[in-house]
């Protein structure tokens, strides 16, 4: 598959997944709210990885570049989860 075809296929998949996220909320409803929340966030994470990996070419960059971004991400997640946990 040429690069352009690959990028186009990725665009279509991202488009579909974005639409699916709205559907997921309706599917799980209030009873399984936390399952739905988890599923929606996982889909977002998958989409982000695909954009970073292919559109931003991280897949073809040295791993050290990925490590730089992940370091920032880990710091942000540490703040988010530790702060939220501190008031539970």
């Amino acid at each position, binding site marked *: 598959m040429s690069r352009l075809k690959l990028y186009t296929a990725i665009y279509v998949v991202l488009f579909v997944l*974005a639409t699916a996220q*709205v559907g997921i909320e309706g599917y799980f409803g209030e009873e399984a709210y936390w399952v739905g929340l988890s599923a929606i966030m996982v889909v*977002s994470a998958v*989409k982000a990885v695909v954009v970073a990996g292919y559109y931003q070419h991280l897949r073809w*960059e*040295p791993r050290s570049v990925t490590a730089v971004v992940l370091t920032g991400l880990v*710091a942000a997640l540490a*703040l988010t989860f530790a*702060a939220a946990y501190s*008031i539970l």
Partner: protein
Amino acid sequence: MSEDTPADESVDGEHAPVAAADALPVESTEDDGGHGLPPTWTIKRWLVTTNHKDVGILYTVTSLFFLVAAGVLALLFRANLWTSGAGILGGAGYNQAVTAHGLLMVFWFLSPFAFGLANYFVPLQLGADDLAFPRLNALSYWLYLFSGVLFLVSFFQGSTLAGGWTMYMPLNVPAYMPWQGATIAVLALVMFVASVTVSSVNFLVTMHRMRAAGMTLRRMPIFSWTILLTVWMMLFAFAALLAAMVIFSADRIVGTTYLQYEIAGAPANEGAALLWTHLFWFFGHPEVYIVFFPALGVMAETFQTFSGRRLVGRKWFIVAMVLVALQSFLVWMHHMFLTAINLEVKTLFMATTIGISLPFDLMVFSLIYTTIKGKVRFTTPFLFSFGALLLFIIGGITGVFLGAVVLDYEFRGTYWVVAHFHYVMVGGVTALIGGLYYWFPKMTGKMYDETLGKWHFGTYFVGFNLVYFPMFIAWETPRRVFEFPPEHTVWHQVATVGAFVLGASFLIMFYNFYRSLDRGEDASAKPWEYASSAEWTVPSPPPLENFPGVPDYTGGSLSFRSQEADGGTAHEASHASVWPLAVALAGFVALLGLSGLQQGSYAPGVEGAVYAGLTGVGVLALLWTLVEMAREPFHGPGGGEGSAWPFADVGNTKLGMWIFLASDVVLFGAFIGSYVFIRVSNGWRDWHHLIPEAHVAFPGLVNTYLLLTSSFTVVLALVAAERNSRRGLVASLVATFVLGVAFLVNKAIEWEHLFHLHTDAFPTGWELSTNVASSTFYLTTGLHAAHVIVGLVITLYLIARAWNGAYLDDDRPVEFFGLYWHFVDIVWLFLFPLFYIL
């Protein structure tokens, strides 16, 4: 040569020595200008320079100015504390003096002072011509200077910030601190963070990509190591502070109620105070090490040089520093033991706090053992460094008390904290002053007066302990309060005397430097016998291009290859640019104007019109100067030719963009983290009561489609550029622009609808100030929209250049823009579910 002399050791994989020669035959071109720069004795030189050594001197001189400014404030409130009570300053004056002293010292003196030295010496120690982006380096400096000027302006606009340097909430919300000066102070901090971020990116690219051949990370001089770790910490910690300051300034300027507590019937956000402490200390604790690490680097360098002995356990010293840099992000809640956070998390953070003290023990023992193994020469730089070690040991031990939950219940908010904090932070300053003496001959070409230097140290050390040690004795005095029990009066009076002795000691330093510059003895290239890093191999002061050839350590010690043999990659283009100064000045005007916007509106009449006009002029000038800076032909030094692990295969600009994006991850991460925290504190699923029914997923979904499609068109633009298709490139970029504008228009329609809806639950619409849910929604998605707008401005610039045929032979600018635009897309991928679906 004996084995104790570091300059003569063969390379052992742990330290890169330099050639023993006193000075290499390099002609100094400083006074004649060169590289398009006017001579050093002209004012114009200092306004247009981008050379790292000039910028280093600018940082050093400016930071010393802020030391004096903040020091005078300290003398004012110490005089006030001669007796208990409001005294000469009065309540409001005292609070302003204490707050401004802390902010100016921590932000505008401490780190910039260290970065004066870092700017000057890190490229020299690495074997680089300059920093990777010389104009961005100049921009960092001018942003720093104008941010400081903006802060000083705040004193003349009602009142500056007066709620303590930690800016706790709700004390600092507009209801309690309504003055415009307080807003200006907050905006000054935003501008300062911009300076720090630009500087961090620049240093990281430089230090990873521009080391000389053979200058591996293991061999890098210890001062450069401390700066490397410092800038990594700065990159992430200051992004969290930026998030905090943007939220803070939005509450003051556009009228969100993010940090609002329950005030006079206004909407309440129960988690506001705790959220602030999380955001502030997530930045604030790494900041302690950001401030202290460069001082540690100076200590290690001077201990080596003046004991004639390589740092004992050098490798483990570096490992310990890396551990501290990582751990520094895992201890912030020890500043919050008195808040409502749960006991489990307090216990966890007590353990991590004890954990971070362990690597420091190793470093302290390494420094002590280095002096024991070597033969100490008690010069002024060593005395200051050794004094700093003693002070830091006291500061460290007294800090352990505060890291224990139970003891902290007693000590928090008292003068114990003030004393401990100053023994650590001003202990660090002590070493940095030693660094200034150490490198003064190299920076100026003149030796300082050793006798005066020792007098300075003596008065400084006595003054330091007189002002801060009594605070341990009178520790029950409440912090930031001018009233204290009568039995503490004598100790406060001793501290006040000590403060004036400490302040006076700097008069000796300034006189010494003035006299030395005027009639001091000329300094040789290497005035210290056992100095071992590369800056001591070139004349004092070094020539503009630093080295006589291309530095190379691959042979075991420093040697120089000829420029021609190396392919002639010297940094030969003009070093002069007025645009960094112009951009910072435009930013200053814009922020000054913005400070007139209070709670969403400018004051009526002429005053409001002036501030609105300043905002408009500043923003337009900012756009114009940025475009001119982008258009200016300027060739920075290359990179990647020497040691560049682990980024050898990534170009300077691309790496710079990725590092910047990593800091943006933390900025948006902190925003999302804040939203999650506030929602948890309000009850995650009860949140829906704060949101109108009309706030539906559809507009967000449309915007997701628009942004995803715009990401795809950016990909198409890059493909078109690779295929040499000018038409395809322009068409793809125009499509990106149109989609970005459509995103903003859709958002504007959505917001307009929400602002003006009328329901039983929200009879006056769902506005920025309606409740905490509306504040988090508008501010977070608004920050994202601001990123879109910045992207659209860049797109317009790219379209104009692509129209004229640019990017077909070099598509990298399109690729770098794409990295940014896709990141903006990725952020939306998370904002959409969080703010529209869940």
